[in-house]
């Protein structure tokens, strides 16, 4: 299978890579760019563990082809903290113990950040529906929702 040359921006860094046309963005991030923070839980868009933001839109990177990354700007979990300054959401997840095993955490954080950028003052119901595509099997979501609400509050005050 001949490969395609793609130029893209991930977390403000420009990357060039070669990929097979069947490789997904998730495959590319993990296998070609060594950005393994995005996780594969299903590869069918049902779990959200691979969530990234592409040109401002929250997407499952398993449902985007690597070749579609051409010219796009991608944000992944690896770009969320500013140096050793954690994003308020990351900090609140630690404070609220909003993770247990941690496999869903990168995807949940990326999704929650996209929510708060669109809606800085979401209701609990809005948070729950926005995150419906991010499966978590450990926490029962309770502490995740609390952490997101608390981060939103702190970010509004800032």
């Amino acid at each position, binding site marked *: 299978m001949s490969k395609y040359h793609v130029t893209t921006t991930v977390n403000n860094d420009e990357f060039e890579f070669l990929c097979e046309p069947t490789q997904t963005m998730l495959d590319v991030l993990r296998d070609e760019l060594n950005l393994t923070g995005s996780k*594969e839980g299903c590869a069918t868009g049902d779990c959200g563990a691979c969530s990234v933001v592409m040109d401002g839109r929250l997407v499952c990177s398993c449902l985007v082809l690597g070749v579609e990354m051409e010219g796009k700007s991608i944000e992944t979990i690896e770009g969320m903290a500013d140096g050793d300054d954690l994003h308020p959401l990351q900090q609140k997840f630690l404070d609220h113990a909003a993770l247990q095993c941690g496999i*869903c955490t990168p995807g949940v954080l990326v999704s929650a950040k996209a929510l708060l950028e669109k809606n800085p003052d979401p209701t609990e119901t809005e948070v729950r529906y926005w995150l419906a595509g991010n499966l978590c099997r450990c926490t029962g979501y309770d502490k995740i929702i609390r952490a997101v609400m608390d981060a939103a509050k702190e970010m509004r005050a800032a």
Partner: protein
Amino acid sequence: MDNSLDMQFSAGDKDLNYVGKRTKRPDGVDKVTGRARFGADTRLPGMLYGKILRSPHAHARIISIDTSKAEALGGVKAVVTRDDFEDRESEFVPAGEMMVNYRDMVRNIMAREKVLYDGHAVAAVAATSVSIAKKALKLIDVEYEILPHVIDVCDAMTPDAPVLHEDLITEGVDPVPTKGSNVAKRIEFKLGDVVKGFEQADEILEKTFDTKPVHQGYIEPHACLASCSESGSADLWCSTQGQYLVRAHCAKLMGMEISKLRVTPSEIGGGFGGKTVVFLEPVALALSRKTFRPVKMTMTRDEVFRATGPTSGANVRVKIGITNDGKITAAEAELKYQAGAFQGSSVQPGCMCAFAPYDLQNVDVVGWDVLTNRPKVAAYRAPGAPISEYAVECVLDELADRIGMDAVDLRLKNAAKEGTQTAYGPKLGPVGFVEVLQAVKSSDHFKAPLGANQGRGIGVGFWFNIGGETCVSMSVNEDGTLTLVTGSPDIGGSRASICNMAAEELGIDVEKINPIIADTSSLGFNFLSAGSRTTFACGMATIEAARNAIDNMRARVAQLWEVPVESVIWENGAARPASSNAGEFDPMTLPEIAKIAPKTGGPISGHAEINAQGAGPGFGAHMVDIEVDRETGHVKVLRYTVVQDAGKAIHPSYVEGQYQGGAVQCIGWALNEEYIYGDDGCLQNSGFLDYRIPLASDLPMIETIIVEVPNPNHPYGVRGVGETPIIPGLAAISNAISDATGLRMTALPMSPPKVLQALKQAQA
């Protein structure tokens, strides 16, 4: 058991600095930044990609496997089939939930004579890319002779059912059968005389319940990376609840010496019992041994559902007799549990737990372990217990109704307490069941009003909890920090709890302790992170290791002060004179002692190698409010409270997390989750789209009440907390639906079509 550990909690209300505090988890930052390395996140130079060819049939004899075309494909470096795995003797070894048999295990990881379920591994390929490996799988020709299959547990027990293993003779029945069947085992637990007990009853109720297999649903699929060297040694990285058990199983299956196989556990993306067995690991090792190149294997979600271990589906009959004033006089149950394609369901703990929450005189529980053409079951939190306790709790609720007694009062009246003779064996030590039920009654939730079409239900749960073999090693570093080495994979934040206990013992800042989870070559044997043992057993070993390090430091200081070691005590992170009689010395802090360690005898460490005993049973209760949409059968969960005895919550946040996560798994199991098979015996919902685990939008907040009745066998009173939370919810939800509608659903899941059908039948 080492009873030398002081039982600290009983020393009175000693102020605790870290135990019971919500400290920062040591692995937290790595997990919120995407840095933490899970099973599929490791790569090696020269790595190959392994893929497995799986059976499309539920039951078929393998006539032949031709791999020649796959082997000829460019980029394919190795193919393995049944011929690459040596057959093993029938030999049972403990592996978490139940015993496993190596003769079965070698057949489960790669089908031998027959394929026994849809998804059963038949061959595997290692290639230079995933796409080549997938292409190669299509080039493998397998000739099958398709056989009739059986999926349902009751069908599998009939005399004319297709038999999976013709040589399987039922154990525990008299006379011993002469012919093979799907029934592996009959077990029975008895106490007193149920016939007499039922004679004393005013009300007797008997009902039969069905449950479907459900999957643990961990979000991280199984993944591993194996690298065999020409020297005969091998490295294996994998996501597992127990690297030492992976080592034991793989060494056995590969014919390797234990010391030559080093297994390094990755961070684990959920397990719940499902990552206590091996699937990919021996196959990856076999592929690597053929190529002497690293081989990485990851499962797809479809493979996880089809070919790992869900829990049993079951058929359970329960009969209970009570007097008009609510005393249970007799309790009887018959449990038929699916084991999947090989024997070893969780029916035994199911039998043992069935009536364990109650103080009963007359009990008879019979269990059957039954094979079906499904994947071999694995543990799923408190294996076996949710199924049997669900049925019991539903029957009890109806009996409470019949005699006009409050459901909690009925349970209180019969509650197991210290000294209760259990049907499964011992008398109970101190347990917190009565306290749990009292906390239910005094909660706001219990008193809150309900609206139309709403109902409230409660259910209770019991799990034994376990201890087991554990090693911990702790180095006092030259700058006064500590490195804590454990061998227990952290599945839910246990590192934080363990550091809390270490900091408490040592009297130092918890953030000065850095824990790591060791590979199998760096620390002695540890049993699985399972059975709610980690905080209990690994905690006990940590406390002992800390005390060992403290003793070492006290000895150094005693030498320095030229006093007997007894004259030096350890308090608030420093060695101090035991009294003024010991001499006037300024305290020496841990960093001060660490700094001069080279002069006082060399590096300082502490260690413990224990087999932790005396785990404290865990009791819990769930209370749930639901609303039924009478036109669609949809059940909405409105409010949910978990009450459970933790013994002592070392890190309350992660105790709450266990309660909340377990409760939501109950909600999934009760309402929507199930394995759905077609007439062809193939699984139809092998993905998260149609295997419906609860979503954030399906749920309310999950309230928690932590009851603390200390376990006298642990220095801080810890009981395990991970297993019990998956038990009470199934019945609680069923009882709530019954409260809202007056209907008793007797089959799980209580999905909308079933609820609507029941509502229509009741109307008609």
